[in-house]
Every structure is written in structure tokens, then in C-alpha cells.
């Protein structure tokens, strides 16, 4: 037991920068959301107004969650819970994979495995660390909510809801890490499961049943498949349901125990998925920078495309369905036609636009990930062998930027095609389904700005590239999703490239904005190519 604690403390020391950044970042988001709600929606009429607006709009339900009556706490929970839970899930999965599969892949686990402790000791220590991190996150969040003026019992419950979702993903990531062959693939799969949890909850909530007071929505069954959906059922500020908390913690314990049992029975470094031999000779394109970049990116890209396809399909197929559900409530018809220009067709457009916007974020993320792979190549010593060849660094970064941009186009295109197919199959004609393809592609210029900016950071300050590369995307997301709620000045909200994408089909295509974004992306890419030449290769 003291050995276990020592291992957990050792792992915590390795995370002494990463974990505080995650915990404080999530806490800050929670605090900012609640104080914004307190200032902007302090009185009941304004709360009722925003909740009605959201409850009758499936896009809102999908992205944010379920309106649960008036009250500052209830509005905060509705606005912020799903995002916060996703962040807690990602913090947890990255934490677990870093100390399990990545350590095994790099041979560190073998080293630690030589100490006189049970085989699964290191995994158990990681599970302890993950639980502790989420407990601290829950306490910090609760303290932030209280500081912003929310009632104490509800604040504690809301923190617990987020922490419990995080703990569930600690257990789930531990199980994923037993199966996947590498740290990178384990991270991808576990993060994908966090995304799937958000998506399932979104579908369930968007298909939910609207109460007659227009202030409450109860979710449909898909939400029950999602840990984030279960966290939401906790309803800490209105009618606390401890059963939901118990379900989450029991599920977390179940997957964690399964992971420990697998770890006890398997070899160190063993991979449960079968490993095939590779090919003896490089294939076509396997001897160039572009070929290598493609080879390294293709499975990641496939993952993003699957996510984008799911999102697109939901956007296309579900839009008509949810708008029908809402419109079938007779008294709402008039209300919706007043709130949403275009009535039911308008409602579909808003839903599709919101989801394609998320697909645009996926496109940016896929591109950023391709760019950041260069940093991994450099830090892990492989770039040295590549750059000893008689080819310039400019060609190396250029090849990777090409694949990154291609990834962004591929992800957006996949979302658009999936949305068009979904809308086509749903049989609702609100316009040609094919028009959703350009609507998805309209987000490419903003995605290009993000990946090119990540390349500039990599070229100029390599050690900051992972932090800033993802940090810029997170910043853009927060500005886009929460900027208005926080009452940020317009110029600051306008910093986010997403703000300048055409939100089709609700808005018309804005060629000027797209061209400006593309020009900025090209300029940034040029700066990256120029800067990479001027620095040392840095481990």
C-alpha cells in the first residue's frame, strides 16, 4: 500500500504542470459561465426567455443539454454542463493513457515493473490519481460556482456530476489502454468515446420531450447510453437525483476492475489486438515526406472522418425529425414561427448549421493534429534522421502542412456528404440536400487558419506547440460558444476564425470572409516555412 501511494505520487509529480492547467482551466470556464449567467440572466423573466428559446430549438438542445426550469443554478447547469463534462472526460482519458499505454510503449513501464509491487500496481496507482484529480476538480468547480453566487448544495452537486463523469472516463480509458497498441491510438480511441458520449447525449436531448411550460425538456432514450447524459440527470440545482451519481460511479468501478483484471493477466507491453507483420518494401510514395506524413496521419484522419460522418449524418437525418417533434406541439407552432424565421424549415437549417459548425471544429482539430505530429517526430528523435537527408526543412514542413490541409478538407467534406445523404434519406425537402456539402466546406478556411497558426508555433517555439496548438483551438471554441454569454467585446470575439466562417445554410456564403481567412492561413504557413529554417532541432 505505501508502494502504491508512492507510485501515485510519482505519477502526480510527472503531471505537476499538466493537471493543474486542466483543473484550473475547467474551473475557470465553470466560474465564468456562472458569473455571466448571474449578471445577464439574474431575474426570472430573462431566464424564462432564454430557456424557452433553447427548449424549442433542437440545435441548442443538441449542443448544450436540457433546460431544467428557471433559477440561476439551473440555467448555468444547462449552459455549461455538457462542455465541462467533455473537458473532464478528456482530462481523464489523457491522464490515464499517459501513465499506462504510453509508458508501456516507451519502455518505462518495464522499468517500473521491476520493483517489488503487484503487476497491476502502476495501473491501480493511475486509477487512484485519476480519481483524486476528478475529486479535486469537483471541489474546485463547486467552489467556483459558490464564488459566483450559486447556492451551495447545488454547486456541490454540479461539481460532483462533472467529477463523476471524469471518474467514469478514468475507468474507461484504463480499459481502452489495455486493448490499443500505442499511446497515440489509445488516446484517439478514448477521446473518441468521450465524443461519442457527447453525441449520444446530444441526439437524446434533441429528440427530447418538451414540457407544456416550455421551460423543461426530458431526454429521449439515447441519452441513457451516455455517461454525460447520466451526469445531466443529476439535476443538482432543481431535483437532485443521487441515483444517477451512483450509476456513474458503479459503471466507473466496473470498467476499472475489468482493466485491472486484464492487466494482471497479460504481459507487459502485450497488445490484445492482433499485430500483423508489415510489408517488406515501402509502397508507392513511401519514400517521400508527403508519403510519410500521409502514412502517419491516415489512421488519425480516419478517426476524425468517422466522427465527422456521424455528426453530419445526425445533422442531416435528425434535423427534420426533431423539428417535427417540436412543431407537432400545436401551441408552439406560432411561437417557433415568431422565434425562428422560416418556421420548421428554418428550424432544420439552424440545427444543421450548428452541427456543421462542430464538424468545422473537427476539421481544424484534424489539421492541428497533423501539424503537431511534426513536434512528436522532433521530440522523439525521428526528425533528426529525416532532416539529415538532402532535403530542406521547408519541404518537410510543407509536406506536413499539405497533409494537414488535406485532412481539414477531408473531414469537412465527409461531414457535408454525410449530412446530404442523411437529409436526402429523411425525405424532407427543404431545398436540395446536396447544398449541405458546400455548407460543410465553408468551414475549411477557418480550419486552415488554426492549423497554419499551430505550424507557426511549432516553427518558432517548438516546446510550446502542443500547449498552444490545442490551446488556440480551445480558445476559439470558448470565444465562439461562450463569447456572447460572457459579454466579451465584439473585437475579442472576432479574434476567433470561426466567427468569420459562413454559417451556412442559415447565412449565405460570404466569399470575402472566406478569402480573408484563406489569405491569413497562407501568410501564416509562409511564416512557418520561413521560421523553421532559423532554429535548432530541439528535443
Amino acid at each position, binding site marked *: 500500500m505505501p508502494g502504491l501511494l508512492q507510485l501515485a505520487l510519482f505519477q502526480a509529480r510527472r503531471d505537476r504542470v499538466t493537471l493543474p492547467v486542466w483543473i484550473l482551466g475547467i474551473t475557470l470556464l465553470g466560474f465564468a459561465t456562472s458569473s455571466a449567467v448571474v449578471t445577464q440572466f439574474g431575474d426570472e423573466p430573462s431566464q424564462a426567455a432564454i430557456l424557452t428559446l433553447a427548449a424549442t430549438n433542437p440545435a441548442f438542445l443538441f449542443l448544450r443539454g436540457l433546460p431544467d426550469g428557471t433559477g440561476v443554478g439551473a440555467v448555468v447547469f444547462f449552459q455549461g454542463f455538457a462542455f465541462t463534462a467533455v473537458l473532464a472526460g478528456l482530462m481523464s482519458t489523457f491522464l490515464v493513457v499517459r501513465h499506462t499505454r504510453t509508458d508501456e510503449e516507451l519502455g518505462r513501464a518495464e522499468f517500473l515493473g521491476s520493483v517489488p509491487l503487484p503487476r497491476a500496481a502502476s495501473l491501480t496507482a493511475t486509477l487512484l490519481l485519476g480519481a483524486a484529480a476528478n475529486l479535486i476538480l469537483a471541489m474546485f468547480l463547486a467552489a467556483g460556482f459558490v464564488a459566483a453566487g450559486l447556492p451551495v448544495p447545488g454547486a456541490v452537486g454540479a461539481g460532483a456530476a462533472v467529477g463523476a463523469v471524469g471518474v467514469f472516463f478514468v475507468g474507461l480509458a484504463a480499459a481502452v489502454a489495455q486493448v490499443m497498441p500505442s499511446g497515440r491510438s489509445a488516446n484517439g480511441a478514448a477521446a473518441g468515446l468521450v465524443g461519442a458520449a457527447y453525441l449520444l447525449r446530444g441526439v437524446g436531448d434533441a429528440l427530447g420531450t418538451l414540457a407544456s411550460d416550455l421551460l423543461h425538456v426530458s431526454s429521449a432514450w439515447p441519452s441513457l447510453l451516455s455517461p454525460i447524459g447520466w451526469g445531466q440527470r443529476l439535476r443538482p440545482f432543481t431535483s437532485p437525483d443521487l441515483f444517477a451519481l451512483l450509476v456513474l460511479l458503479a459503471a466507473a468501478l466496473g470498467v476499472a476492475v475489468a482493466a485491472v483484471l486484464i492487466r494482471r493477466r497479460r504481459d507487459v507491453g502485450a497488445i490484445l489486438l492482433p499485430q500483423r507483420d508489415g510489408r*517488406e518494401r515501402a509502397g508507392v510514395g513511401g519514400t517521400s515526406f508527403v508519403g510519410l506524413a500521409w502514412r502517419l496521419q491516415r489512421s488519425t484522419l480516419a478517426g476524425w472522418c468517422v466522427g465527422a460522418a456521424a455528426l453530419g449524418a445526425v445533422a442531416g437525418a435528425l434535423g427534420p425529425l426533431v423539428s417535427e417533434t417540436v412543431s407537432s406541439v400545436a401551441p408552439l407552432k406560432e411561437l417557433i414561427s415568431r422565434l425562428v424565421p422560416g418556421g420548421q424549415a428554418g428550424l432544420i437549417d439552424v440545427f444543421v448549421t450548428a452541427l456543421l459548425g462542430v464538424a468545422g471544429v473537427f476539421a481544424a482539430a484534424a489539421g492541428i493534429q497533423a501539424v503537431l505530429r511534426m513536434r512528436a517526430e522532433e521530440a522523439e528523435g525521428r526528425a533528426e534522421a529525416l532532416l539529415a*537527408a538532402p532535403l530542406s526543412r521547408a519541404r518537410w514542413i510543407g509536406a506536413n502542412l499539405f497533409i494537414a490541409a488535406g485532412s481539414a478538407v477531408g473531414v469537412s467534406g465527409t461531414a457535408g456528404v454525410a449530412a446530404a445523404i442523411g437529409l436526402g434519406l429523411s425525405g424532407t425537402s427543404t431545398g436540395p440536400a446536396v447544398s449541405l456539402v458546400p455548407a460543410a466546406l465553408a468551414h475549411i478556411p477557418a480550419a486552415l487558419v488554426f492549423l497554419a497558426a499551430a505550424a507557426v508555433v511549432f516553427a518558432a517555439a517548438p516546446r510550446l506547440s502542443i500547449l498552444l496548438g490545442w490551446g488556440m483551438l480551445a480558445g476559439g471554441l470558448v470565444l465562439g460558444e461562450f463569447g456572447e454569454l460572457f459579454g466579451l467585446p465584439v473585437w475579442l470575439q472576432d479574434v476567433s476564425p470561426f466567427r468569420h466562417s459562413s454559417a451556412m445554410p442559415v447565412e449565405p456564403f460570404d466569399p470575402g470572409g472566406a478569402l480573408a481567412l484563406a489569405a491569413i492561413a497562407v501568410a501564416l504557413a509562409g511564416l512557418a516555412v520561413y521560421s523553421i529554417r532559423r532554429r535548432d532541432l530541439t528535443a
Partner: protein
Amino acid sequence: MNTATQPVIETLGLVKHFGRTRALDGLNLSVAAGEIHGFLGPNGAGKSTTLRVLLGLIRPTAGTARVFGVNPWDDPVRAHRDIAYVPGDVSLWPNLSGGEVIDLLTGLRGGADGNLRQELIDEFEFDPRKKARTYSKGNRQKVALIAAFARPARLYLLDEPSAGLDPVMDAVFRRHIERVSRGGATVLLSSHILSEVEQLCDRITIIRSGTAVETGTLGELRHLKRTHFRVTGLAEPARLAALPGMHGISIDGGAAEFDADAADLGAVLAGIAEPGISGLTVAPPSLESLFLRHYSDRNTAG
């Protein structure tokens, strides 16, 4: 200096700082065309840093480096055209097979000689179909060596190339060094193992704390080579002091320990050959002890 005698590698007063660490501190290194040059030094002496400067991967804080007369930082592509490099710490793409990595690294330099590639794979008894994540340290080293030797180059920069190789594979490696050397190529081989450098190299530079402390042919450095003896059963150990080339004699009862200059080994062996001796241990000098002595000698002389 005309082009025929221009050194392939020349550095003058090379300095490299990483923060407060001085990795290189005025390094002078000159490697002539066609020679196998040993670059010898303890861990952390600055060997890998020097090779990275020579490849233009990092920029020297001060001093100049020339490879084929080209500044590798200003024009890495031209400098790299005829270089084969084996990094000190070979890191591979875990999801690529060994064969794919070899084709990638040779392909970026213009493509491998197919027969040579196959010959190397056979001689190194290497399985190119396995994914790189399954390779041991020695097998990763083989990937880098096969990629370096599977295509002709005029300069081979090898950073502790035989690390992780077993003696049989080490012999294969040496055979290929000798092959490319016969073909007129220049080799810079960094190592911390004196015997490895001795067997292969024409000239040696010894680096310590980022500075070249000795450079010359093996013959010129002979004065650095001393063999360590431990003899038991000598009738009159005190007599040893009269023999030529003796250093650091210590006598403990019937046992005597001392170092002898390589040039005087014959006289020393004759001197200790007497009927009564009951034990004899002879050890080649380790690099560290060589350094230590080198410095203490310099200190006492100064």
C-alpha cells in the same frame, strides 16, 4: 590549400551553448578525405552535439563548421547530398516495418542500391517485415546502419554506431566500414570505446568537456596508451621501478600493480618474467583512466 587536400570536415573554435550548459567549448576538428576518423570521448563530452552541428541541425553559438567546404547551417541540402548519418539514439516509426523505414531513409537520399540493401539485410540477419515497435535496441541500430550503408555516400557520420550490436553483428558493421573506406569515403565515427576506435580508425580526436584534448594518428597517440598489470609472487617487487616506461607502481605485500607504456611492453614483460610469479593480470587501458592520467600528467608537467 587546394581542393585535393581540403579537409572533408573542418571546425574552428566551435562553441555551442544550451542555456547555461556549454556543450561545445571551442572545438577544433579536422577530418581529411578518405580517412576513418575516431571521435572519442566520455558520455556528455559533446560528440553528438558536434555531429548535429556538422549536419546543420543545430546552429553553433560561435565558431565555424565546414563540411565539403559548405557551411551546413547555411546550406544543409548541399552539405547533406553525400552524407550518410547514423544517429546515436535510433528512434523509429512504431507502425512502419523495418523494410519501410530503410526505404524511406534511403529514398529521401535518392534511393538504395537494391543488391546492397538485400546483402546488408542478409548479413545483419535482419527481418524487415516486423513493425518497428517490436524491434530491440540492436535491431533498431541495424535499421539505421542498413539505411546508411545501402547507398553510396562520400561521408559517413556515425554516432556510437555499434551500440547494441552483438560481436558477430559488430564484425559485419566493421566489414562495411572497411568496404566504404576502400571506396574512398570518409568516416567520422564517434565512440566511447577505445578498442573499437583503435581497430578501425586511422586518426583519432579525443574530446572532453566540449574541447578536443588530443588529435593524431594512433602512433602519435601511443604515449597515451598504457597497459595495466597486476603481478603476484615477484621476489623483489621494488626492482620494478628500474624498468623503462613504468608508471604508478603500487606494491602490497607480494602483489604489485603498475601501468606500462605500450612502447616498452617488451622490456617490461622480460623484466617480470621470473620463476616465482604466481599470477598475472593484464588489462587494456579504459578511456576514463586514460583521461584521468592524461590530465594528471599534464598537471604534474605544468
